């Protein structure tokens, strides 16, 4: 193992089940074919082994983590290990008394996603009627004294309303607002022509967010994550492959990111079969893109290789069919025209309809 001495964050994908069907869902396209979810005791062991490895942050996510009825036990276990425990949720399905229990058990932060600022638009992206309930849940989060992160995934249909999103976040008393542009992998890549904004849209929204960041400094943290497609150089995806993040999928695969198991030719271990420390240090999948030996040109001789670590492996694979290719987002990539073509198409996109994942939980009222 090279520089990757310890992971800081464990992303626990507790389930792929979700009442929502967001058109940019980060779960793999084949989520329905995955095996049985880990049981409570296995998750608690994973938390212990992760903490022992150096993990200090725990994200409880999914799918929708609330559909697990053992969330109380998992929060208790996590806080017993002094992990900073963050629940990343759609807010559905949740009752106020359950949220009160989470508070009593020491849950540190609640992150709620909304899809837009108006119910009809938000629900269209989520594929279910959920918006009004989400706002109600966000209200409970603050009323119970939790810090609230509001997460909004941005795309061409809501980018022009970023000012309204910020106003809503202020009204809800959010401590942190994540304005996270869609990254075009998996479901979002499938829906790319309906989601990719124009550069002008993006720049206007970015300016609005920058103004808000100044104005709200010290009260609400405003984060604006640019889509890779409008960068000239890729960001360090996951802070580099197998460097800081450790993700465990619902069925127990230990991964460097949420889509790593969709890359061909890599072997990933299951936490049911092998201790986490061994997986982190020795598994073929984790070591595949650590260091620089795997890098092709132009990455291998590029000064930025220690900054961006070659960009996103999943993006490289999904666009070029080769996981070790230079991320096409980079202007130096021989495949960069793929990104330029997508940008050009965004200026005059064809009429498109969203493609939704199938419902996995009896949903309130499915749309579409």
């Amino acid at each position, binding site marked *: 193992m090279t520089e990757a001495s310890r992971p800081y964050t464990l992303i626990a994908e507790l389930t792929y089940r979700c009442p929502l069907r967001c058109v940019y869902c980060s779960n793999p396209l084949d989520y329905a074919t995955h095996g049985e979810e880990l049981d409570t005791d296995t998750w608690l062991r994973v938390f212990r082994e992760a903490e022992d490895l*150096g993990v*200090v*942050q725990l994200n409880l996510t999914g799918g929708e983590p609330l559909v697990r009825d053992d969330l109380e036990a998992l929060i208790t276990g996590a806080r017993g290990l002094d992990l*900073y425990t*963050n629940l990343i949720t759609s807010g559905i399905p949740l009752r106020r008394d359950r949220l009160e229990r989470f508070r009593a058990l020491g849950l540190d932060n609640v992150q709620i996603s909304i899809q837009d600022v108006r119910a009809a638009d938000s629900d269209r992206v989520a594929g279910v009627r959920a918006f009004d309930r989400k706002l109600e849940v966000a209200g409970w989060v603050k009323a119970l004294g939790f810090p609230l992160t509001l997460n909004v995934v941005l795309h061409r249909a809501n980018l022009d309303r970023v000012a309204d999103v910020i106003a809503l976040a202020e009204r809800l008393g959010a401590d942190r607002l994540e304005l996270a542009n869609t990254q075009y992998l998996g479901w979002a890549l499938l829906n790319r022509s309906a989601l990719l904004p124009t550069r002008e849209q993006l720049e206007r929204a970015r300016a609005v967010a920058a103004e808000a960041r100044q104005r709200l*400094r010290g009260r609400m943290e405003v984060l604006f994550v640019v889509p890779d497609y409008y960068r000239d150089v890729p960001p360090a995806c996951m802070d580099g492959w197998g460097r800081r993040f450790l993700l465990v999928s619902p069925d127990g695969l230990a991964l460097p990111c949420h889509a790593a198991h969709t890359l061909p030719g890599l072997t990933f271990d299951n936490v049911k079969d092998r201790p986490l420390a061994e997986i982190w240090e020795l598994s073929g999948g984790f070591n595949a893109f650590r260091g620089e030996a795997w890098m092709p040109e132009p990455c291998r001789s590029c000064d930025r290789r220690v900054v961006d670590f070659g960009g996103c492996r999943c993006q490289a694979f999904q666009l070029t069919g080769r996981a070790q290719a230079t991320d096409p987002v980079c202007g130096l990539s021989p495949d960069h025209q793929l990104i330029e073509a997508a940008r050009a198409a965004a200026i005059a996109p064809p009429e498109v309809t969203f493609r939704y994942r199938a419902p996995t939980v009896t949903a309130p009222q499915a749309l579409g």
Partner: protein
Amino acid sequence: MISATTRPRLASKARLRFDRKSTRYMLLYPEKGLELNETAADILKLCTGEHSLAEIVDQLSRKYGRDAPDVERDVVAFLQTMADRGLVQDAP
């Protein structure tokens, strides 16, 4: 703004944790963490909302054997940075 009467406390989203690997304190908050040096940790440990800035400065200048005005300048600058990041607040 941080002033002499401020009673700083950590924001509700921020939590101190001792890290066995680095043998330092970390300030953890959603999705992020800061690895603190000894001085920063000493300051933040006193940010409970119970101590005024003057009391914090007094304690630290005795601990480090430094003049209070020097310590105050450093503490105010540090706490202002933390307040701007939404990690420290003035207790109500």
